[in-house]
């Protein structure tokens, strides 16, 4: 499992090069074809071993697309103050409550930068209750003038959270588990024996800014069905009201039936749940209508693609440090491998 390397790699949406290099390096030896497309997606083909006539109508094998996105949320430099501070905007959705006190790595040189706010000693009235807006926050890299700041971190420079991967026992913590957890699951699946069908793995760019990489990748691959692999919200923290935890750590892979971006294909959901029940693999449904994933783009590619999302539950995604259960990770890999080994044209037949 190479989640540590994937988590610590830096790849804010639009600047995924570092993760792409790692992915290319990791998967090359296990697959038949690799290419990088116009947007920066990594498109991988691992050919199936089934005879074309036995697995598909006519002369081709079934094409299954597995997607995980490489990008993570972060910041971009949009200006420089006269005192040498960097003005920034978020790339993707970051809760502004998380930014004060954060340490960042700025630009390809990974210059350390920090975000501080007005000291508690100088707060007046209810100032401490208010969450600072991104317009009011600056990044301090130690520069003393506008010119120096501009030289060190020119306009458009990306910044990412700086967080080390850690093992906490049955769980691990680190940044960008959304979606390096999905990338790591996908890498595991590629490492195994080939399936009957042609496996098209997509390591997608720009999910966090609107599911953009997956959209063109799904067009290019033209799959018969697709699985998006994710790290998704777990909200199992204690709370006042008895509301759904969205997903829970330790309860197995989370299957999406519907979120804000798509309705999952029921045949693929059935394949997953039947497989899990048969083998005693724990699984859970993600609470409908929370978040969106690359399936939202994939299911509407060309004439449409039956799609589903399977995710490793992660606490604190889109924050400097997220946390997941290694059991959930292993069970996600296992459920996917087993479900894929059972997939055929038959799966996609309408009853």
């Amino acid at each position, binding site marked *: 499992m190479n989640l540590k390397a994937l988590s610590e790699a830096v790849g804010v949406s639009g600047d995924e090069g570092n993760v792409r290099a790692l992915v290319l390096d990791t998967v090359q030896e296990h697959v038949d074809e690799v290419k990088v497309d116009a947007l920066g997606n990594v498109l991988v083909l691992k050919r199936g071993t089934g005879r074309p006539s036995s697995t598909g109508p006519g002369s081709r094998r079934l094409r299954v697309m597995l997607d995980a996105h490489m990008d993570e949320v972060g910041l971009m430099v949009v200006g420089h103050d006269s005192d040498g501070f960097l003005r920034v905007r978020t790339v993707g959705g970051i809760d502004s409550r998380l930014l*004060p*006190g954060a340490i960042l790595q700025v630009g390809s040189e990974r210059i350390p930068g920090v975000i501080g706010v007005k000291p508690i000693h*100088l707060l007046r009235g209810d100032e401490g209750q208010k969450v600072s807006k991104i317009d009011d926050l600056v990044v301090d890299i*130690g520069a003393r003038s506008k010119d120096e700041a501009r030289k060190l971190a020119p306009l458009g420079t990306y910044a990412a959270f700086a967080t080390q991967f850690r093992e906490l026992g049955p769980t691990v*913590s680190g940044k960008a588990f959304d979606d390096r957890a999905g990338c790591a699951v996908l890498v595991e699946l590629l490492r195994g024996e080939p399936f009957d069908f042609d496996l098209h793995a997509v390591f997608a760019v720009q999910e966090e800014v609107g599911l953009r990489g997956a959209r063109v990748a799904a067009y290019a691959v033209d799959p018969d069905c697709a699985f998006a692999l994710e790290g998704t919200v777990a909200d199992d923290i*204690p*709370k006042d009201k008895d509301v759904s935890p969205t997903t829970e750590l330790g309860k197995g892979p989370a299957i999406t039936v519907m979120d804000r971006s798509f309705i999952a294909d029921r045949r693929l959901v059935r394949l997953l749940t039947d497989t899990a029940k048969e083998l005693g693999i724990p699984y859970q449904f993600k609470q409908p209508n929370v978040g969106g994933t690359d399936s939202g783009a994939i299911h509407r590619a060309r004439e449409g693609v039956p799609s589903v999302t399977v995710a490793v539950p992660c606490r604190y995604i889109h924050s400097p440090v997220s946390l997941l259960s290694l059991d959930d990770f292993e069970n996600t890999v296992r459920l996917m491998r087993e479900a894929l080994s059972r997939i055929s044209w038959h799966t996609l037949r309408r009853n």
Partner: protein
Amino acid sequence: MEVIPLLKQLSEIDGPSGFEGPVRELLRQTWQPFVDEMREGKIGSLIALKKGTSRKDSDRAQGPRPKLMLAAHMDEIGLMVTGVEKGFLRITRVGGTDRRVLLGLEVVVHGRRDLPGIVATRPPHVLPEDERKRTAPWDKLFVDVGLPPEQVEQLVSVGDLISVRREMVELKNHRVAGKAMDDRACVVAMTLALEQLSSALHAWDIFAVATVQEETGLKGAITAAYGIAPDLAIALDVTLGRQPGTQDVDTFPMGDGPTIGIGPNFHPSLVKRLRTVADAHEIPYQIEPTPGASGTDAWAIQLTREGVPTALISVPLRYMHQPVETLDVQDIERAGRLLAAFIAGLEADSLEQLAWDTKAESE
């Protein structure tokens, strides 16, 4: 001694108020070559003595040597466990911890063993709009140690202390950022002064004290000063550095030298002497007007026993009480040099010269 490695070591070690042991043990080793004696105060302050040369120990008839106390606090703000729920820890603050900077922070829980953890709250994806716009209140903040609830119950109990976990980073222009720079930066300044004095003779006894529990009410300074009964005292702490969103009168630029406080907390003649020394050694400094409570160990030490003439040297620092406290290491070096030069210049009768003196004041 290299400043940045020492500061990094001291910044990263755990020492929330009431749990200063790791810092104290590190300082025992660091100070060993520079001092004559060390003892631990009754509530944990580390008190080191570097003997002066004005009188021999055996020469009882002449009375004791004059004593200067230096104080920099070794505790840092932190958190404490107030409950365990579904394996998540409920928390409160120790000292002036700022809850605006806690979310997404990595911490260490000092349970039966040290447990890494994360400060957590419910994700924004599921929160109502109004809750996302307010700083998460204490009853919605938890620490997650990533272990099953049964194991957490065994390892953690109410009252366990929690430290922020943060590696120091070096920014541009000899600036550094990290946790607990308040007040480990000044522990470093004090250490630098002790090192410089190890090759110089000084008349006075120097009591260097790394105090405990400053952040929770100056407790280490109150008790250590009583025990030492110093003739003079200089406290070292950090002060608010200039940063966006603050007024110039409240803050001091980083890199322009340490500040010397002026106000009711400080003895005017002692302040004057510090300024004279700084000028003579061409050490840049700034004046910090302090109309009332300085909020530092100096405030307590001044009222020890029959009263102690006290001064305060401060290092400007941005983002105080946040895990990204930022400062210019040159200011630490300057504070150390100023302290060493002041001490080297003390003579056996300096105390008499520092007495209230209208002529000196009006000069």
